[in-house]
């Protein structure tokens, strides 16, 4: 299902990035990197439109809800953030998170 999963910090750098065809990882790096333009645009658009800055949810780039992908990923991400030994801003190196991503990447047949 998913070929590449990336978690991006709000300062625009990857906290986590992983893709299945490992031989062409750079391609996905480029892909994720360029797609951040859209996120930037959404954020700046929201800044103008919304008074309530607390609403940080930007919406879905793509309907991934078919696979409950976002929910899974977000739950796992929350777990990582709850780890008292995790330093916010560091790369995510949690094995649990890794396993979760792997499970998302394995195609469902």
């Amino acid at each position: 299902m998913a070929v590449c999963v990336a978690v991006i910090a709000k300062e625009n750098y990857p906290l986590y990035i992983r893709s299945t065809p490992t031989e062409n990882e750079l391609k996905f790096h480029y892909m994720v990197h360029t797609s951040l333009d859209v996120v930037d645009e959404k954020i700046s658009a929201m800044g103008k439109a919304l008074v309530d800055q607390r609403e940080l949810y930007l919406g879905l780039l793509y309907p991934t809800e078919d696979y409950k992908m976002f929910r899974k990923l977000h739950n796992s991400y929350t777990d990582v953030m709850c780890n008292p030994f995790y330093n916010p801003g560091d790369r995510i190196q949690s094995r649990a998170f890794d396993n979760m991503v792997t499970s998302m990447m394995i195609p469902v047949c």
Partner: protein
Amino acid sequence: MSVPDYMQCAEDHQTLLVVVQPVGIVSEENFFRIYKRICSVSQISVRDSQRVLYIRYRHHYPPENNEWGDFQTHRKVVGLITITDCFSAKDWPQTFEKFHVQKEIYGSTLYDSRLFVFGLQGEIAEQARTDVAFYPNYEDCQMVEKRIEDFIESLFIVLESKRLDRATDKSGDKIPLLCVPFEKKDFVGLDTDSSVLLGLKRHYKKRCQGRMRKHVGDLCLQAGMLQDSLVHYHMSVELLRSVNDFLWLGAALEGLCSASVIYHYPGGTGGKSGARRFQGSALSAEAANRHRPGAQEVLIDPGALTTSGINPDTSTEIGRAKNCLSPEDIIDKYKEAISYYSKYKNAGVIELEACIKAVRVLAIQKRSMEASEFLQNAVYINLRQLSEEEKIQRYSILSELYELIGFHRKSAFFKRVAAMQCVAPSIAEPGWRACYKLLLETLPGYSLSLDPKDFSRGTHRGWAAVQMRLLHELVYASRRMGNPALSVRHLSFLLQTMLDFLSDQEKKDVTQSLENYTSKCPGTMEPIALPGGLTLPPVPFTKLPIVRHVKLLNLPASLRPHKMKSLLGQNMSTKSPFIYSPIIAHNRGEERSKKIDFQWVQGDVCEVQLMVYNPMPFELRVENMGLLTSGVEFESLPAALSLPAESGLYPVTLVGVPQTTGTITVNGYHTTVFGVFSDCLLDDLPGIKTSGSTVEVIPALPRLQISTSLPRSAHSLQPSSGDEISTNVSVQLYNGESQQLIIKLENIGMEPLEKLEVTSKVLTTKEKLYGDFLSWKLEETLAQFPLQPGKVATFTINIKVKLDFSCQENLLQDLSDDGISVSGFPLSSPFRQVVRPRVEGKPVNPPESSKAGDCSHVKPPESTRPLNMPSSLEIFIVPLLSARDCHEEGCPGRTHSLVGEDASTEDAHRMSYMLCQGTDKTLEAVLNFKYSGGPGHTEGYYRNLSLGLHVEVEPSVFFTRVSTLPASSTRQCHLLLDVFNSTEHELTVSTRNSEVLILHAGECQRMAIQVDKFNFESFPESPGEKGQFANPKQLEEERREARGLEIHSKLGIRWRIPSLKRSGEASVEGLLNQLVLEHLQLAPLQWDVLVDGQPCDREVAAACQVGNPVRLEVRLTNRSPRSVGPFALTVVPFQDHQNGVHNYDLHDTVSFVGSSTFYLDAVQPSSQSACLGALLFLYTGDFFLHIRFHEDSTSKELPPSWFCLPSVHVRAVEVQA
């Protein structure tokens, strides 16, 4: 139509296309000079109307694009300007011919053309022609602009006529079908006139009408009639929609959009010529409004449109509908148009251009998301096989457009693709320079700056994989450009900033290639300026190695300068009159935080310690590593080091010599790693620990080197001593021995040594030391001063060790285990109170306390001894008691109850065995040499060199027992010493006035020394001076020491080891206790018996004659500080039968003249009183007088030792006849 114009924007629809081209050989420079001047005339207000004409100039235009001129008139080349060189009249016809050939290319669409001839003069030039202009040269052509204006006006006339011509076509007339090139073949053979099918005919007619309406709209727009064009476009859209003529419907919609954009955004959407356009467009909008007053309000009713033909008067339609599209509608219509275009494969270029135009409009509207959709569409429009150059252009323009809508990452992505396209393998001559330039432009998009300072704050956070790729490409491109310095710089940057993200293999590869590059072009610290105005800052390798800690080291202790303390208090701030102020203290604190409070010395090697770490998976060779300093001229001595792979923290010491004085600041260090020179400043290093980097350099001082006659010692003195000792020497001496230590002082510095002071400090030792340990005379040495560099002086020190000669207590304890026990001894006697532990204040030795269990049985069972008393007490009581016994009781039998004169040899062996076990003692002392000279001396600095002295003291002799025996005289006594030879050699002991005693190894013998009693009271005691504060115990101790010294000097005991030719003193100071001392002391109440006027206190008997009364005088001298008395004395004569029997029954042999008992009332301190009497001996013989003493009062008991009662020996002889 295959070549897209990526620069197109919506307002280009209102322009007239004019091609400017050179004919023949015209230099590029000249051509563009004229071209530029022509281009400046880009808009013209038409004379008699308010309309404005816009011109678009091109110097290159593919003729096949011209073929689409009917579809969108702004694609049609309507004017041609040719520029040519012609220097002679005979060339003229040929030139003119070329002009005509050129005209032919665009011939079908041209409204007018011009030829500008440069260089031709003469009659041909003078002929007045409208289509040809002659100029003598490229400088002298002021009239060009005017000519162009005329030319444009002529274009306008044609345009206006065409517009009117088309617009006034009667509806009944046959309207030609306008076609795009690829449609032409579709309509070939279609006979529209004879078509049988009416529907088809009507359909066809509508199509013709719609296309024509659209065409007229285009012409109106070009002619500056915006509102008219809107109306025409609207009508066209209606017509074409009904006949599903999608391509042209798209064009009509696009025209509508363009006209609306022009209306809404007079500033233009193209961006680059915005300002100029703004003025003009504003004017045009106004002009348009004026041209048709109230045009805005009028509406077109679409239902009222005549479908049968084109009404020449559009005014009838105006006022029915709102012509102009709203900004949202523009985008909708663009979308629609593009979707129609996309139905036609051949209209790819049109679609692409429409997309671009829409994006530009959206960018103005700041609707980036929608713009990106259009762009996304544009990306996927597949044109025919593009040439490499076109691809580059395409990607570049995509990048630009993404930049325009604020999508910097996508922009960077496409720019990078464009850069890669520049050097695609299919290109014969790769454009590395262009590639490099484009790559540099992508840097902001990847949020990558080439300044390493931006990366120095904490760990790098970014798109490492992508950034690294870009850096690699920069390195490669710069190398292929033939600029190795640049590639070294980029590679250094890559290594420095991306180190955390490089795999081990990559680290190896990168360093390998870096070394390859630097072998040709070493990396420098110079900024590299790029042609584009960008400057590449230098990249210092602060991570190769990583420096964690920088510490300026003080000079070694022996070279450390010290400030002489002056009375003025140099350390105090002289600025303030206050002795203390919190403000000043605060300031000082700040100063201190920066400045380190030690000094370096000019001319002496200084050290800075760095803790470095090699993050590389291989050995790192750092060359030429040195210090960067400021403030003082500094000679840095670079070091080369090789750090093992992934080393831990590794200390590196960088050295240098300050050449001048002042304040030096260590700013950083420089290295050469992989051929790259780096200057690493400490301020730029993240996470570095430094304890200040500023140090004062003081003027030069001499350097002293010490060498001694003694061997160097491996021992180092305890660090607790505070001073750091540069040299340690050691010597082994027997207890009591003396030795000379000769010290050679050599000045190994560059300055003369002018001053020297020597002090010594004996380190605290648990051993008690008697006498002067170290003594010296400095004057002889100072006579050799000043000591010039390289010169040597000598200095002599006497070492004398005199430790306790008493026997260790544990030895005695063990001895007492032997059954010769003391446990039965009555310890509850009053003497216990007098007895004290042998050494006051001495800590209880750990072995002793641990042995407490062992020796507990030694304690007498009935002992009332407090528990905290040292166990050594009982042991020492033994000899004391024996001494007392023998003295008081006159019972010699018990005196030697413990150790007899002939101490058993078994005991002696035992002793020697035990004494050999770790009985060596150590004495440690530090000799401080303070010296100074040269300029440093004038500044008030000196140096301190410390010599550690380590003396191992081996025991020589021990006095295992001390006791006294009264001598025959009350003024003398016998000191009994049990001397034990603890050496392994034969040893002799001598005193000042006795013969030599020979002791074999391990032998113990008793020696008796007759000594005069001491009058300790005569010692000056000055309690007023020091007694007030000193506690009584200390006073007592001092007094005892003084007494010990006195006794020692009197005795003068010396030992000698003949086999080793060593000798020394032996001292009893340590063993003397209160009791012995009291016995050695002259009693405070001194009794003197004078027989016949002669003092009688000796062994020698006083002779007197039988029958004659002998005068007897008993004198009492009170040396005590208090008055004593009253006393009574009774003289009792007796005879000693020398067999232990004393005969007191002498009434008939001796008679007293007067009383035999004397009464004394009181004796004042330091006064005397005497009692007189007489004796009459009736028979000859040896008599002894026993003087009995009766104390009157029972209240005050005087200590018995106060009474030193003399014994008087009188020999009565016959009177010589």
